[in-house]
């Protein structure tokens, strides 16, 4: 019980610090919403690859981007920064168990991700008439849970690979931006496209496809469990890598 109270308390403080940091709040939170607006403005009215409208495509696509952004990008950057500023080391010297601190950071990231998902869904429904898939809520929760776990694990893993906090934006963006382009997030690709095939090896495309199948216009799209298996596989790989690369010592 005390552990749970410590965790909730830690999340509250992390959250407060997050919202007061203009860069974190902007790039993590405002970015997906801006992208959604811009993509809809550019592609609005056009039919996308599979015949659906731009809005119908970009709503689940930006839901995917929100999770990736909050869990992977935000977590990797903020943890490597906290490491190099010595915050992690300081925490290690207190009685707070390390796992509570890390779970708090993960929990705060997932929370931001979920709030974004809610806003994007609502924005899609109100501004572009893309209905919220209420009927498939259990599946959506499952996909979001596995997806966030996967990208949090990968975010922690990559934070351990980042040589120092100054290199964090470069490393994080270099690893994630190309994937966002070849994974049906920013641009829909035909399934037989070579880049799409390459994208299929990585987790972003599987989260995007899983979300697309939930957001199909009549909500009849079947959720292919293979996407969840890929995400789980990457989650385990990410966790294994994080346990090897993670360190509390500042690298300056």
């Amino acid at each position, binding site marked *: 019980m005390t552990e749970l109270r*410590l965790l909730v308390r830690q999340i509250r403080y992390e959250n407060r*610090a997050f919202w007061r*940091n203009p860069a974190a709040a902007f790039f993590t939170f405002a970015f997906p919403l801006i992208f959604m607006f811009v993509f809809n403005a550019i592609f609005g009215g056009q039919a996308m690859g599979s015949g659906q409208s731009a809005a119908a495509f970009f709503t689940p696509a930006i839901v995917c981007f929100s999770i990736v952004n909050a869990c992977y990008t935000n977590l990797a950057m903020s943890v490597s920064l906290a490491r190099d500023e010595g915050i992690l080391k300081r925490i290690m010297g207190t*009685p707070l168990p390390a796992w509570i601190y890390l779970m708090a950071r993960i929990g705060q990231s997932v929370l931001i991700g979920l709030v974004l998902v809610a806003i994007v869904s609502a924005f899609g429904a109100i501004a572009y008439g893309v209905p919220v898939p209420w009927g498939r809520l259990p599946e959506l929760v499952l996909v979001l849970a596995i997806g966030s776990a996967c990208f949090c694990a990968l975010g922690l893993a990559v934070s351990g690979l980042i040589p120092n906090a100054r290199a964090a934006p470069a490393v994080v963006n270099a690893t994630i931006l190309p994937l966002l382009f070849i994974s049906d997030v920013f641009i829909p690709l035909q399934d037989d496209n070579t880049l799409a095939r390459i994208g299929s090896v990585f987790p972003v495309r599987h989260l995007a496809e899983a979300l697309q199948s939930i957001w199909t216009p009549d909500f009849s799209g079947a959720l292919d469990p293979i996407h969840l298996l890929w995400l789980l596989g990457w989650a385990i790989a990410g966790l294994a890598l994080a346990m090897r690369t993670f360190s509390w010592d500042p690298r300056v």
Partner: protein
Amino acid sequence: MAAIDVHGLRKSYGDVEAVAGIDLTVADGEVFALLGPNGAGKTTTVEILEGYRPRTAGDVSVLGFDPARRDRKMRERIGIVLQSAGVEAYLTVAEVVDLYRGYYPHPRDRDELLALVGLEDRPRARVGTLSGGQRRRLDVAVGLAGDPDLVFLDEPTTGFDPGARRHAWEVVRGLAALGKTILLTTHFMDEAQVLADRLAVMVGGRIVAEGTLGEIVARGSQETTIRFRLPSVAPALPGDLPAQREDGGAWEIRTADPVRVLHRLTGWAIDTGVDLLDLAASKPTLEDTYLALTGQAPERAEPSPA
């Protein structure tokens, strides 16, 4: 029971031995200073005691715990002030102190902590807006948040101006008066002199001297240094005076028998009518003792063959 007990502590990184077998005992309620130049192994030693690093060999007990096991109970009773460690820049001073207080079973009162380090008038300031000195004070407040029995202070005044140093010393003295055990590292002899009950001097991973300041100074060189200048035109000094020329052109004689040497020198000066400018004789200072112990004294040239 001793607060800290260390026997045969070693720490190697590959072939490099950062700590090469040291023994150390810090009694309950004592202020102990670990003194030494950069790279002497002070921080490595302290980080092993704090539980940050595993050791290669030796026995270590901190408040009865083995720090390598990273016991939560031990961390509840120690306070660590690291050389440089950040805190969330977007939280306020009061929020940071409260955040850390929440980790401990018996935290110290927040206002008391802020008053102790002299930040009582800035509780609502964002950490990011504090000056370097204020950040350091916040470090100390956070380190003391759990009302620890044992406090580690790693170079608490490095980079401070004289006023800030004096204030930091007051804080440490205040802690000592509360009966806390304090282990501090420093490379300032005067800091150790002002604060510590006992100290150990560490060089190259070894302890080269340990005890009270008086004991260490007494064990060091007792040679008196005699300094003087000669006019630009002067006869050579007598050959039996072990004088040597310093960089500034002054002459220096180190001797355990200052009375005899001064007699010989002044006798020579009177006989030859040479003026001994700026003549002074001095006992070794703390700084001299420290420099001699740490091998940082300037290399002495062979006595000049006059």
